[in-house]
C-alpha cells in the first residue's frame, strides 16, 4: 500500500459515542453550513466532522457536553417556534440565517463587533424563553464553528477529515517526517506531494522504513 492509498482510505466508522441520532444530524447540518461542500466532495459532512465532534465531546471535551445537549435542545425550540420545523428540515438559506442570528455574519470587519440577533432584545427582555436561550445558543454556534474547523483539518485518526478531504482542499500534505531542499525551494508545487497521515508515519516507524534524517537536513544547494 502506498502512502497515498493509506491516506485516502477513509475511517468509515459511523458509530456514535455521545450524540443521539437527532443531535448528530443537527450538528452535521450546522457543520455543513460552516464548511459547505463546493461540489468537489470537500465539506464538513463528507469529512465526517460530526464524528470528530462526537469523539471530542465524549472524550477530552467532556466539559462541552452540556453546551451541546442543552444548546441543541434550545436550537430545536427556536426552529420550531420560528419555522415550525427542526433545523435539519430548513432550507440551506434558512439554516444560514439561523447561524447569522446566533454567530453573526460571515464577514466581520476589523474593528466591528458582530451584531447578532438578540443584542437589542436582550436589553428589552421582551422575548421570554428565547431570551433565556440566547447565551447557550451563541455558545453552541461558537463551539460548533471551532469544532467544525478542527474536525475538517484534523488528522484522520481523530475521526474527521475523512479521506483527507480537508487537507486536499487546501493543499496541506499532512504528517511528514521532513522536507528536502528541493521541496523547500522556490517554484516547488506542494500539491504534488502525496498526503500522509499519522497512521502512515506510525506504520513506517514500526516497519523501520522511515528515510534517514540526512535526506532532509542535507543541503545540496550549498
Amino acid at each position, binding site marked *: 500500500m502506498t502512502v497515498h492509498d493509506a491516506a485516502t482510505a477513509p475511517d468509515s466508522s459511523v458509530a456514535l459515542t455521545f450524540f443521539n441520532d437527532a443531535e448528530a444530524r443537527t450538528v452535521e447540518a450546522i457543520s455543513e453550513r460552516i464548511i459547505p461542500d463546493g461540489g468537489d466532495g470537500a465539506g464538513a459532512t463528507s469529512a465526517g466532522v460530526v464524528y470528530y465532534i462526537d469523539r471530542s465531546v465524549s472524550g477530552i471535551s467532556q466539559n462541552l457536553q452540556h453546551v451541546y445537549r442543552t444548546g441543541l435542545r434550545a436550537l430545536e425550540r427556536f426552529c420550531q417556534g420560528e419555522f415550525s420545523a427542526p433545523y435539519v428540515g430548513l432550507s440551506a438559506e434558512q439554516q444560514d440565517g439561523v447561524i447569522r442570528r446566533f454567530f453573526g455574519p460571515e464577514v466581520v470587519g476589523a474593528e466591528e463587533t458582530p451584531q447578532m440577533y438578540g443584542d437589542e432584545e436582550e436589553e428589552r427582555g421582551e422575548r421570554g424563553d428565547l431570551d433565556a436561550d440566547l447565551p447557550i445558543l451563541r455558545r453552541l454556534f461558537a463551539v460548533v464553528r471551532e469544532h467544525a474547523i478542527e474536525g475538517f*483539518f484534523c488528522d484522520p485518526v481523530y475521526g474527521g477529515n475523512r479521506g483527507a478531504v480537508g487537507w486536499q482542499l487546501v493543499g496541506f500534505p499532512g504528517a511528514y517526517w521532513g522536507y528536502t531542499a528541493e521541496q523547500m525551494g522556490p517554484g516547488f508545487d506542494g500539491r504534488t506531494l502525496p498526503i500522509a497521515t499519522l497512521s502512515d508515519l506510525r506504520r513506517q516507524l514500526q516497519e523501520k522504513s522511515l528515510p534517514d534524517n540526512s535526506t532532509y537536513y542535507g543541503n545540496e544547494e550549498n
Partner: protein
Amino acid sequence: MPASKIDVIVVGAGASGAVIASELAQAGQKVVLLDKGPKHTTEDFRLKQDEIRYYARGSLVPSMDTDPITWRETSQDGDGELAPWAAGPLGTANPLHLPPSLGAGGGTIHWGGACWRFRETEFRMKSEIEERLGKDALPEGHTLVDWPISYADLEPYYDKTEWELGISGRGSNVAGRPELNENPWEAPRQRDYPMPPLRQGTADIEFADACTRLGYHPFRTAAAIASEPFKGRSGCTYCGFCHGYPCHVDAKTSTHVAALPYGEASGNLEMRDYCRVHKVNRSNDGKRVTGVSYYDADGRSVDLEADRVVLACYALENARLLLASGINANGQVGKHLMTHAFGFFMGLTKEPSNPYMGTLVASTSIEDFSGELVHEYDPTVLWGAPIISWPGDYQPIEIAHAMPPSAPRWGAGFRDWMRDNYAHVWSMYSQTANIPTNDTYVDLDPTKKDPWGQPALRMTHGWGEWDQKMVEFLLTIKRRIAQEMGLTYWWEETTKPDYHLSTHEVGTHRMGEDPATSVVDVHGRSHECENLYVVGGGQFPTYHGYNPTETIWAMAYMTADNILGRSAPAPVAAHSHDGHAHASAHTHAH
C-alpha cells in the same frame, strides 16, 4: 543518587533550571530537580505531527484549570478575570499565549527556537532613551532602569550557550572574520556560531531580496535548532511542526536533550516529575531558605531540605512562589512586568509559500530599526526592534485562526479562502516590549485559587500608547516590505493586542545591585535569603525586541559559575576553532 544530604534543589526543569541543575551536578553537587510536569523523552514525541494534540488542545502547556492566571488591564479595574485570551470557544488556546510547556525542557520543548544576543545598547536602554530623547520622553510612572551588567559581561556566556547547547546561525561581527558582515549592528562576538543557518523557507528569500532592494540589511536569524548533526543530535528535518510542538529528532535545542542528560550522566542529578512546589521554606530568622514543600504525583505534601534552592520556573511562577512563601520584604517581587506584542503581519505571496514546511526561525531578519536606531526615523518612538520573517511551520487550523478580518468566518467563503490562500501564507513579526510602569505587575489573586488551594497569579497589564507607537512604527516598515515583495494581500495584528501573555514574560524579580530596589543580584541570588537563587527572564531589568531565551541561558551559566565559585569562561583562543571556521566559511559560500 543523593542519599540524605541534598546540596541544591532546583525548581523547574526548563530553559534555565535544566542548565543550572546539570552544570551543578557535573561539578559534583548533589541536585534534586523538581518539575510539576512530566519527564519527557524524545520517544514520547516520535509522532508529533499532530495539530490537534499540540496546537488546538495544547497538550504540553498548562491549562487555566490547573494553573489559573487572572488578568486586569489596570489596577483600577477591580477583580481580575481568568485570562480571556487563554480560553477560546472550547476552553483551550494557542500555546503562544499561555505559560510555557510543563515538564523536562519546559518552554524549550515547544518553543520556536529563536535565538538572539541582546545588542550592547539594550543593556542601557533607559540611559539611551533619556540621553537621546530627553528625560521627559519616558512615560509617567515608568520603572525602567539600566542593567547592572553589560554586554561584555555576558559575551563569554553567550558564546558558551551557543557552543554548549547548539545554536545555528551566521555571525556578522566575529573577531578575525571581516568577511562576515551582513548585520552592521551585531554586537562583537569572539567566534561564529557552531553551525551554519537553517535552510530558508521559499518566501523568506523574497523577504530578504525585498529588504536588500529597500536598502535594509538582511541577515539570517539565529536558531536553537541544529542545521546539521550536533553532539549526537540530528540536523533539522524541516517537518513543519515546530513552534508549539516537540521535536521528533532532537534537532531543536530543548534542555531535556541538550542539558539534562549531561547532568544525569554524572550520577548527581535526580529529577522528580509531577512535583508541584507550593512553598519555599525559611529559617527562623528568615535570612536563609531551608528547602521547599511540594505536592507529589499523589497529592501528598513533601518537605525537602537542601543547602541551596534555585527557583527556575518562569518569571510568572517564580514571582508567585516567592509571594506565596512570603519572601518579599522590599515589596519588589512581581513588579516591572514586561511582555511582548508581536505586531504580526500576514500576507499572501504570488508563488506558493508552502507554509507547512520548515521552521519559523529558518528565516531572515533586519535590525535597521532596532533599539535606539529607530530614533533616527521617528524620535517619538521610544525603542525599536528587529523585523523577522516567519516563512513556515503553519498548519491549517492555525491559519484558519489567523485569517484577515475581510475573510468570511464560515460558509462557502471561508472554505474557498482556505482553499485559495493557505499555500500562499507568509508572515513577518517584530517584538516590542511594554515599558514597565507602576501599573504593570503581578501579585497574588485575592480570591482565585488553584485546585491545590494555592493562590492564583494575577496580572495587571495594559499596553500604553507609547507601547502601541512602537508596534505601529514597525508596521509602517512592514507595509513597505510587503509592497516591495509584491504580496497580493496583507493584514495586520492590532497595535493593542488582546493578549498579555506571549511566552516572553520577564522582569518580575528584577536583578540589581541595590537590595532596596531589586529582588536578586546579578547572579540571580536573592537579596533577602542568602542561599536562594531566583533565575530566568524575571531577572531582566528592561526588555527589548528579542526573544529572551539565549540571554536566559547565558545568565543561567553565569549563576552556575557563581554557585560553584568559578570564574567566567576564558575567551576561546582563535586557533581552537580555526578548523570549524574554515569549514563553515566553505559551507556558507554562495
